[in-house]
């Protein structure tokens, strides 16, 4: 099951990019939750989650996004989702995520949205 879920993290101009791949279910969601907690602990609140490689999500994965959104926005940041495959997007859509989260086509779009917002500051500075 080593290929079930992976996260790669990188920095791009004060924005933290989390590239996730594989499936996000009740088995793998705790790893994603730990990754988000690590980012918050490090003061990173401008997060882009690149979903290019995400093949499946269930409520356990959706719940991680939901649990941290309020805290991240309170700290002046956001969690933006990019490049969600249609089969995965339809699951986000069932719960109305597109009205609550910033979900965009590409990572570049997501990074640009942080620039446009202007007010969101990187918690590390």
């Amino acid at each position: 099951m080593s290929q079930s879920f992976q996260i790669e993290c990188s920095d791009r101009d004060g924005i933290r990019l989390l590239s996730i791949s594989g499936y996000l279910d009740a088995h793998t969601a705790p790893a994603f939750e730990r990754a988000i907690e690590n980012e918050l602990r490090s003061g990173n609140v401008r997060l882009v989650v690149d979903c290019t490689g995400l093949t499946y999500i269930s409520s356990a994965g959706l719940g991680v996004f939901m649990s941290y959104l309020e805290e991240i926005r309170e700290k002046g940041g956001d969690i933006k989702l990019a490049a969600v495959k249609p089969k995965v997007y339809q699951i986000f859509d069932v719960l109305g995520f597109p009205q609550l989260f910033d979900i965009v086509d590409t990572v570049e779009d997501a990074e640009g949205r942080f620039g446009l917002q202007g007010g969101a500051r990187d918690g590390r500075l």
Partner: protein
Amino acid sequence: MDAFERTFALHVPSSTGNLAMIRDFVASIGAKAGFDDNEVARITLAVDEACANVIEHAYSLDETRQVTIRATLDSQDLSFEIVDNGRGFEPSQVSEDDVAELIRQRKSGGLGMRLIRAVMDDVKYQITPGEKNELRMVKHIKRG
């Protein structure tokens, strides 16, 4: 489609590590029933959610317990039954708050049943105290 009912069953130890195997099982039956990729993905999600509830809540991650998924395919419907004899839950206690309110409260519980009800056509949950809990969900097969 023949007139006969066909049944399929999968028994796996109660571990979240087996959810991927359960999804593969459901997806192959969904494809056999003629559902398109997006429908198969939604049906798979519903069964995954039901099994995750059993594994995490009814059996409290006890891998010595078994989860059984029984699928029945006929010319009208694809239905799934997940039966356990662990701790039951009361569906009326699942939060009815909308997702925006759950986010404000930093909560995420109760999404599983909500997703199941959203993607399946008919969902019934029956508790026989001290004996078993049974979740039955049906997806109608649309023809033509």
